[in-house]
């Protein structure tokens, strides 16, 4: 489900937030337009930007609309046509749009290998020089939107994967502090089981949550350089990847997951893996920062978010990877080539300005802003912990399925899901990306 993860997440997040606070900002939210990006650098020629984004449900829908209106107010020569599109549709709409003569001027971009695939259309605008004055403010978050070292997309939020856990269930099982090594995690699993609690929920039916485990073991086992060169070469024959499979096999042998996890979906309903966590049927889930916006809709417990804590993926003794490295990703936008490029770049700068970033966090259901200056408005301690882990990470490793071009990325997800279902081996995982005949 490559194309649909982040999007689905945002959609669910959005739905979740809406269900909880049905009163939130649907119409023009008080413009915090203390004019973030001082306007008027572009010429005064009239420009119309067509903006394809995946905020097709509230609250993001309303936030994007007000952002477009605010930008137009401060840049009267730029008119923005907001065109919200359901996430999955980007998979099929973008190839057609990028072949046509008038693709959207701004469109949803998840970066990585998918962006590199789109780059081959020749229609993606190189934003490096247009954004060089401020892109450094985003830190390493922007790196995931580069192709061959040039900036072809800009993130507006970031995601980091880690363990979400229920503090009440940990206390019930007598666990005083979150585990920091895999051995501790396994012994905590045993304690939870002894207390009659399913240790970890896993949404194997949705496939991509399975991949987080193997990818995190690989991030811990492989050095940063091996990781980067393997992704670049689309080749995972380095021994550390095989070691990751061994680690995963050993971990799975301790049966940490709920029964029937192969058919459990990630975010749909109380029976989903997020729903199991939300309803106290499982103590932990390895998920992205979006979890806090997903769980409220899946339970009647109004205090569920304050019940959750966060800890990073544990250390794996002997691994060559940094123990603080995180698996991450994010959402962003690309511009298409043409006369609208400067206005588009300015618009993306506006989206990443601190006031808009704060608005996204406070009203748009965004977990972690791309501009870390806006992290000050994070109030949830668990999200703050996730943000801090991301900030202090030795380096980021982008989810592999996004980092690879789409085809091998999806092949890897499928191979990993099959492995979790008991079909396949280390070879099928390793070979999935190099022989795209993994069909």
């Amino acid at each position, binding site marked *: 489900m490559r194309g649909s993860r982040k999007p689905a997440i945002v959609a669910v997040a959005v739905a979740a937030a809406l269900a909880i606070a049905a009163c939130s900002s649907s119409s023009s939210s008080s413009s915090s337009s203390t004019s973030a990006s001082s306007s008027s650098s572009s010429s005064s020629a009239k420009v119309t930007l067509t903006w394809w984004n995946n905020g097709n449900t509230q609250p993001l829908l309303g936030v994007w609309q007000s952002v477009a209106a605010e930008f137009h107010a401060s840049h009267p020569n730029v008119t923005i046509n907001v065109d919200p599109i359901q996430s999955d549709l980007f998979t099929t709409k973008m190839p057609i749009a990028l072949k046509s003569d008038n693709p959207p001027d701004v469109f949803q971009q998840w970066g990585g290998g998918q962006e590199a695939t789109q780059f081959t259309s020749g229609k993606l605008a190189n934003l490096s020089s247009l954004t060089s004055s401020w892109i450094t403010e985003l830190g390493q978050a922007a790196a995931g939107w580069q192709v061959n070292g040039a900036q072809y997309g800009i993130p507006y939020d970031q995601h980091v994967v880690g363990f979400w856990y229920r503090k009440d269930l940990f206390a019930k099982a007598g666990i005083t502090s979150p585990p920091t090594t895999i051995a501790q995690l396994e012994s905590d699993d045993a304690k939870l089981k002894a207390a009659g609690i399913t240790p970890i929920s896993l949404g194997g*039916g949705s496939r991509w949550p399975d991949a987080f485990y193997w990818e995190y073991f690989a991030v811990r086992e492989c050095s940063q350089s091996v990781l980067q060169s393997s992704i670049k070469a689309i080749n995972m024959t380095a021994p550390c990847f095989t070691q990751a499979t061994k680690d995963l096999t050993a971990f799975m042998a301790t049966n940490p997951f709920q029964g029937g*996890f*192969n058919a459990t979906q990630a975010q749909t309903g109380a029976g989903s893996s997020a729903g199991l966590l939300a309803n106290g049927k499982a103590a932990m889930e390895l998920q992205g920062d979006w979890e806090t916006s997903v769980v409220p809709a899946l339970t009647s417990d109004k205090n569920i978010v304050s019940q959750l804590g966060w800890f990073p993926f544990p250390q794996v003794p002997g691994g060559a990877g940094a123990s603080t490295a995180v698996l991450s990703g994010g959402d962003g936008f690309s511009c298409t080539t043409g006369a609208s490029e400067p206005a588009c770049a300015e618009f993306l700068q506006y989206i990443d300005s601190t006031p808009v970033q704060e608005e996204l966090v406070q009203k748009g259901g965004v977990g972690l802003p791309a501009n870390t200056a806006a992290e000050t408005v994070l109030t949830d301690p668990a999200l703050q912990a996730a943000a801090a882990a991301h900030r202090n990470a030795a380096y980021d490793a982008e989810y592999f399925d996004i980092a690879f071009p789409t*085809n091998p990325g999806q092949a890897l997800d499928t191979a990993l899901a099959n492995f979790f279902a008991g079909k396949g081996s280390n070879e099928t995982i390793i070979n999935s990306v190099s022989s795209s005949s993994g069909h």
Partner: protein
Amino acid sequence: MARTQSAPAAGRDTASSRPAAAGARPPRRRRGLRKRVELTALLAPAIVLFIGFVIVPMIFAAWYSLYNWSGFGPLNDFIGVQNYTGVLTGPVFHQALLHNVIIAVLSLVIQLPISIGLALLLNRRVRGRTFLRLAVFAPFVLSEATAAVMWYELLQPGGPLDALLKAVGLGGLIHYWLASTSLVLYSVFVVATWKYIGFGIVLLLAGLQGIPPELREAAAIDGATPWQVTRAVTLPLLGPTIRIWIFLSVIGSLQLFDLVWIMTLGGPANASSTMLTYQYTNGVQRTEFGYGATVSVVLFVISLVFALGYQRYALRRDTSGALTRAVT
């Protein structure tokens, strides 16, 4: 029968209140022209739509299937039949095809007898007949997506179905309905049966209404038992309806997608995959549109071969009369 070529034309002309005198009739050539204009005007919209939305996309799909194409950039990596080799020799595709065939066979073996039985029952004057007919037809009215989400929830481990089994003392029968690779296909089949049985029943009920009651009465007067009447009179006369149902059912089985996709994504580990989930996973999600087009073409050919073969050998008797009549 006694009509000649020109007689109908004369009839038409009278109807259009023109003088019936032979001399006033338009020349044959003009009549032919008018007929052609009429035909063109009436058929053109349908033909344009059919060509634009069926024939042309099919040609495009066949063309794309010869390329390695991610959807971006020009169509310039011609690879001949390599995609076809990939699809036809791939074990995952074989598995998906097998699943389609299993669903089709199970439909014939299980759904058909149930449909016939229930249709015969609901055709009799039983108390609450309208309600019962409504009840069996209701699932068919639901969208596939709704039915799939509903059953996904019902089949959760520890979900309503498991609770029900436990409550009636059948706790031993509880399984991971959707998580077990050996069970999931059959779970999906049960849901498909629940969803589509109403359609078969309504179709067969319509067929039953078309059987003149005199035939049954005559057989009964001749001393046939109710079973004999059913077997020797009703079922043979229901033949055309049953043959149409089989046709629709097999084509539907070959094209099964929504239900499976929402409940299982074809998983776990392809255990409930169908040709279309395979196409979506390997064509659309991987942005391998050339490969995806190939799967579509293969599925199209399989469906076409079945459809033509079935028409030729099974449906000919039922449709031949209708077709020849329609021609004049």
